[in-house]
């Protein structure tokens, strides 16, 4: 008996170790994938708007880590990482960015607007904040059907100025919906700094006004994000009502690849880069007794391969045929009772 318990405990520890290394892998994969995306954009292989999340990898990794299949996630415009952590095929994701037939939206829309509901990833529109009411609606479904799932909606501190955000939070509070609101506060909305966007210190301070808890965490500290997210997701899943997590972070690149971000101080960028989430997490792994140098080499090799294969897959994929422009506008009527858009 005692022996079995120890075995279970050590299996659990083993799993935890694996999980912690998996988190590291995800952050590294997101960083490598996005670096490649920026390069492909410079080479004109990805057209249209590209919004890098470099610097913010710990937020999406840490928040998505405790999620399960069937949970619903609405990423914001820089959250390419959400797609990767949720298990969307990197090749299809790259094909999406290149407007290929194999992409999530089959060439219909650009960048992250093509969702993948099979992996619980909603394709948000460009209209900032508009996905929060949708996430509330997903949570409403889970509540009505008594399903043990949660909805997660990411939004920028900039988007928090929109009325949709207020409407979603208010309703979620009223109905105690199983939804986690995650604010990625990177201090800028395009060129506009925080102090021109809000007169208070934290977006999370608004949560109590909607009747739920708001938390502030360093979005560059993966461990802190994941520990908080695990607790919050557990409570929300158990029916405790919505909560808000605000992650303080910083984007390294311009608002989009077209933006040189001259409105920012170089010092400020350096200061934040010195708090990069990846070396910070490596420090933790090191203290836990891992051979970080070896792990880093291994993982760099793995991520290089994954990204390279994704690029090759996407580049070899055909573009959609012109006539497809008129497809995918309507679901068949009548639709199947599953509501999956099939006849």
């Amino acid at each position: 008996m005692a022996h079995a318990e120890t075995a279970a405990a050590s299996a659990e520890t083993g799993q935890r170790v694996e999980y912690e290394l998996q988190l590291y892998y995800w952050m590294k994969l997101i960083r490598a994938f996005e670096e490649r995306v920026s390069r492909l954009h410079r080479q004109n292989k990805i057209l249209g708007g590209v919004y890098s999340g470099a610097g913010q990898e710990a937020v999406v990794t840490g928040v998505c880590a405790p999620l399960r299949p069937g949970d619903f996630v609405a990423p914001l415009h820089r959250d390419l990482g959400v797609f990767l952590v949720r298990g969307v095929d990197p090749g299809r994701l790259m094909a999406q960015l290149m407007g290929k037939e194999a992409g999530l939206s089959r060439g219909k829309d650009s960048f992250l607007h093509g969702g993948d509901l099979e992996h619980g990833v909603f394709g948000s529109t460009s209209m900032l904040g508009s996905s929060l009411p949708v996430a509330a609606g997903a949570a409403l479904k889970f509540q009505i059907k008594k399903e043990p799932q949660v909805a997660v909606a990411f939004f920028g501190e900039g988007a928090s100025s929109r009325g949709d955000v207020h409407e979603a939070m208010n309703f979620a509070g009223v109905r105690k919906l199983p939804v986690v609101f995650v604010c990625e506060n990177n201090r800028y909305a395009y060129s506009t700094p925080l102090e021109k966007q809000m007169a208070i210190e934290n977006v999370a301070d608004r949560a109590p006004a909607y009747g739920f808890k708001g938390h502030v965490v360093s979005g560059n500290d993966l461990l802190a994000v994941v520990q908080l997210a695990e607790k919050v997701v557990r409570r929300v899943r158990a029916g405790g009502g919505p909560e808000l997590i605000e992650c303080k972070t910083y984007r390294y690149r311009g608002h989009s690849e077209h933006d040189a971000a001259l409105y920012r101080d170089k010092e400020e960028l350096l200061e934040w880069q010195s708090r990069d989430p990846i070396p910070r997490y490596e420090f933790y792994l090191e203290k836990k007794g891992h051979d970080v140098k070896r792990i880093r080499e291994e993982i760099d090799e793995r991520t290089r391969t994954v990204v390279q294969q994704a690029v090759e897959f996407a580049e070899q994929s055909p573009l959609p045929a012109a006539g497809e422009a008129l497809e995918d506008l309507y679901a068949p009527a009548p639709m199947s009772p599953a509501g999956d858009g099939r006849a």
Partner: protein
Amino acid sequence: MEATYLAAINHALHEEMRRDENVFVMGEDVAELGGAFKATDGLLAAFGPDRVIDTPISEALIVGAGVGAAILGMRPVVEMQFGDFISCAFDQIVNTAATLRYRHGGRAACPLVIRAPSGAGVHGALFHSQNPEAWFTRVPGLKVVAPATAYDAKGLLKSAIRDGNPVVYFEHKRLYRSVKEDLPDGEFTVPIGVAQLRQAGRDLSLITYGGALHQSLDAASIVAREDGLSIEVLDLRTLLPLDREAILATARKTGKVLIVHEDRLTGGVGGEVAAIIAEHAFDSLDGPIRRVAALDTHTAFSPPLEEFILPNANKIVAAIRGLAAY
């Protein structure tokens, strides 16, 4: 002095702000950055932070606050960063602003300009390519303009700022740097509600506006060269109110009308233009009224889809030939 379409907008703002201290500019990233497209560049330095205001991301607020300031005598020029996001301010425009004078029994005015960079052909995909003019051209109380040249961009913006009504000003992103001309040094305006003949012709009329004007002119010169056709090109410039006289005059003159716009076909401005002609110039027509417009779908991202959806000079040429042969 030569000016691009974009510079013309910028100069109009500078000049109007200098002329009238009640004119002020408000929107996302308009001050420090000078706007996502640089249309408001230099205004902050020239006029200071009380007249060039960066707002939070709040389109309903931007328009609604514009209304509040306008009814008390200010002349706000507010910006939607992309015309696509004007949907987020829809209620404030079509309900608050457009009905304001009517519901105050004619004893109030709302001199507000809403600038909206719109249009496709820049790989903008579903939410950075829209031509939302037709959502507004059926709203009494609003005026809607869509300049196609640098001269009109400047002149119409000045008229819009001086107008006592809410004016939605659609500026086409593709024209910002691709269109330029010599502008007079002195003061000039372009009247709202007046179309402009861009080219006189005998055989067929193209009625168009905005980004599609340039494709229409290209198409007209192709068929002039290759088919010897003489095409009249009418640039509507203002979409609400439409210049009915100019529309009917060109229809009566050539008897064949092709309407061209980048916005979608169904429910587009072209339908209204066609109805005006069918109602009032039917006797003069020598053929059906036809339209070239974006297909009835969303402006897709992938280049083959986008090309298939949007009008271009070749598609206009084909439509001209078909109608000319009718």
